[in-house]
């Protein structure tokens, strides 16, 4: 029987033998020590066949695999046992016993194994200093990693300029219909109410006439509206939308023999008079949504309205309202009795309305003497993400040669942050982006939600964890040391853009991050005197339409709406920053 007093002695002796160190048996029974030595000396297990080893390596280098579903309540090591074994049948070189049926296994594997898209779709690339162009438009042209990827099918995207102050809005969103031959007229009591009425044709043909100009967005016109003069009839086909002043006197007519199916919305600035919002002959399908969106969810200014469609399992569920700082998302299912689905079955189609401010201040933070501000520096923005359960742990010496002030802004999901140094947090739900930051004691973990941001120095130990079940999507920003190569252990690094500057003037500096929505032809103003900027487009494809004008303003010369994030430093001391180069955009190389 083993004596527990000697358990550790055996262990220490074995460790020394394993390391190849000459080890005396010490207190250990010499016979036991000899047994351990003999075990190592007698190890005669054969090595792998070289052909097998080479083929397996090739397969692994090209394998597509299914990420392990993480369950944080289980063992912290995701070691493969959490997944059903058949899912891990790889396309391996068949051994003799496995050759029969190997084709079937491969076929099964091909069906079961999916790509590690979230992780392996983002890559790193050295950034040689000598290939930097002198001036590059501050936009990203990248085929992947857009935070907006994978969302609903966009049916309509249009800018709204509701005449509103700092108040909220009354929002209504519905599936509607007009019977064959039916006519719908606006109500007289609507005449005093500002706001807009939006209708998009899902089926049939509809004729609209109003005593005010109508903005018409045609299907496939990618957001570019045409203006129909007051008093002129306009015919809308499937996919077309009409945006009409709510106060206008107007008529909607279905000249066809089938029902016109519609997706409609009222966007009415507060205060609004609680009048009847349903006109006679206008059929509102079940499942409509209405209510007030408070001002804190939707800052003042122009709004971008989007109608979208979701099809499949994701469409299931009751009507829902989601709101967070800077965006509103309402969803209604395709109602029964409207063609799909048959009564009693789960809806396979849902419609989504989103409203986001076209110029939204996401974060404002003061940087001072306590912050790391290297010179020269890159003012940089990037998209990042961490998969569910993912963890990024950085030791204190990891960035010792790369001092920087780092910002992580949560676009979507949740992020747990722990920093062994100064950490400031700005929460969207506690006063908004301009509220004074909350100082977090070193070593304390905080969990950030969408709209929250963390500011901390890179050259200290820190840990980022995604505690959620969905990827956390981040907008990273920083005042970074120049000429670094991006490496992302556990952090999926997406497209980025930066501007390079030599120095900042002394004194406090205000850092801001804004999200601007530029409709075709729109211009974002040039940086103010002394202001330093980096700009990153949300949609890489549409970002290609952005151009920097001679005066420094950013213009959307494309045909699609472009959402851009603008990181800016506003020196509050004397003088301005000294640019050393132009703006540069980039995408992690595959």
């Amino acid at each position: 029987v083993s004596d527990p007093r000697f358990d550790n002695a055996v262990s220490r002796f074995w460790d020394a033998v394993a390391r190849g160190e000459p080890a005396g048996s010490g207190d250990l029974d010499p016979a036991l020590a000899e047994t351990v030595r003999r075990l190592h000396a007698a190890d005669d297990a054969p090595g792998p066949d070289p052909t097998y080893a080479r083929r397996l390596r090739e397969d692994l280098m090209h394998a597509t695999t299914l990420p392990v579903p993480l369950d944080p309540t289980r063992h912290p090591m995701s070691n493969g046992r959490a997944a059903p074994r058949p899912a891990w049948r790889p396309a391996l070189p068949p051994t003799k016993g496995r050759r029969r049926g190997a084709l079937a296994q491969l076929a099964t594997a091909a069906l079961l194994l999916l790509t590690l898209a979230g992780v392996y779709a983002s890559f790193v690339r050295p950034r040689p200093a000598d290939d930097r162009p002198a001036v590059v438009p501050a936009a990203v042209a990248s085929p992947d990693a857009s935070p907006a990827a994978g969302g609903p099918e966009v049916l309509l995207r249009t800018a709204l300029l509701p005449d509103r102050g700092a108040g909220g809005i009354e929002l209504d969103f519905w599936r509607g219909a007009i019977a064959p031959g039916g006519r719908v007229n606006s109500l007289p009591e609507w005449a005093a109410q500002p706001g807009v009425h939006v209708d998009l044709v899902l089926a049939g043909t509809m004729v609209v006439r109003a005593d005010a100009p109508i903005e018409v967005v045609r299907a496939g016109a990618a957001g570019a509206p045409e203006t129909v003069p007051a008093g002129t009839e306009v015919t809308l086909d499937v996919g077309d939308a009409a945006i009409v002043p709510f106060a206008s006197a107007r008529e909607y007519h279905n000249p066809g023999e089938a029902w016109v199916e519609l997706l409609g919305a009222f966007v009415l600035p507060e205060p609004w008079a609680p009048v009847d919002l349903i006109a006679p002959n206008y059929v509102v399908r079940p499942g409509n949504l209405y209510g007030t969106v408070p001002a804190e969810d939707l800052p003042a200014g122009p709004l971008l309205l989007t109608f979208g469609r979701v099809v499949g399992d994701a469409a299931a569920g009751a009507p829902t309202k989601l709101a967070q700082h800077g965006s509103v998302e309402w969803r209604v299912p395709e109602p029964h009795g409207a063609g799909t689905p048959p009564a009693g079955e789960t809806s396979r189609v849902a419609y989504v309305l989103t409203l986001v401010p076209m110029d939204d201040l996401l974060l404002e933070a003061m940087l001072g003497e306590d912050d790391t501000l290297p010179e020269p520096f890159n003012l940089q923005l990037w998209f990042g993400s961490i998969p569910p359960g993912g963890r990024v742990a950085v030791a204190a010496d990891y960035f010792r040669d790369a001092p920087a002030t780092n910002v992580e802004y949560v676009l979507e999901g949740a992020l747990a942050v722990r920093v062994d140094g100064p950490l400031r947090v700005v929460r969207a739900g506690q006063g908004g982006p301009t509220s004074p930051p909350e100082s977090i004691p070193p070593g304390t973990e905080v969990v950030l939600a969408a709209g929250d941001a963390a500011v901390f120095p890179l050259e200290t130990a820190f840990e980022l964890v995604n505690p959620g079940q969905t990827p956390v999507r981040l907008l990273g920003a920083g005042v970074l040391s120049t000429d670094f190569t991006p490496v992302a252990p556990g952090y999926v690094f997406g497209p980025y853009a930066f501007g390079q500057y030599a120095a900042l003037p002394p004194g406090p500096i205000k850092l801001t991050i804004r999200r601007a929505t530029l409709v075709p032809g729109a211009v974002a103003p040039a940086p103010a005197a002394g202001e330093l900027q980096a700009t990153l487009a949300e949609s890489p494809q549409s970002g290609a339409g952005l151009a920097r004008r001679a005066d420094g303003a950013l213009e959307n010369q494309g045909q699609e709406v472009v959402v851009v994030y603008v990181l800016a430093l506003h020196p509050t001391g004397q003088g301005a920053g000294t640019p050393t180069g132009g703006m540069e955009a980039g995408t992690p190389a595959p």
Partner: protein
Amino acid sequence: VPLFRRRPLAWDEATPDEELVGQAQGGQREAFGVLYDRYLPRVYRYCYRLLGSREAAEDANGRVFLNALAALPAFRARSFRAWLFAIAHNVVVDDLRARRADLPLEAAAELHDTAPSPEEEAIAVLERCTILALLPRLAEDQRHVVALRLAGLSAAEIGEALGKPRNAVDGLQHRAVLRLQALVAAGARPGAERGRVR
């Protein structure tokens, strides 16, 4: 986190495992290839020792590395080596259990002790001149600890791989060595009473 480093995207023999993992997590599949090159022989031999045939070892070894590749984005352990062998351990255990499940019912009655007789042990020792021929006579958890030891893991890493506290690993390996010592003695004297040192 920007995670910018001055260090170029390159590696050599001295590049730590966890740095290679970070690069692989960042999309550098070839960094995983370096880890594969580094650990293939040890993982393969580990599988071979416990499964007993080249064919089974190749099958299990392939699954170990594919599982590791798939789970890499979620790597959170301190030691990659311990994490990799935790995967290997689970694959091997699954295979051993599957073998038992595949046996017909009439064979189940013989499952209580599939180890060779003392005479067979002695012959094996003489034929192979190796103490390793006696590994099947160890209790399963002892056998796994010894196999992980032979794969080069420290006691601490074995604890991490098996999810056992350090003192439990120490006890298991101590009892395994005692058992092997006794079995060697029994092999030199065929007919010695089995199980005396259990």
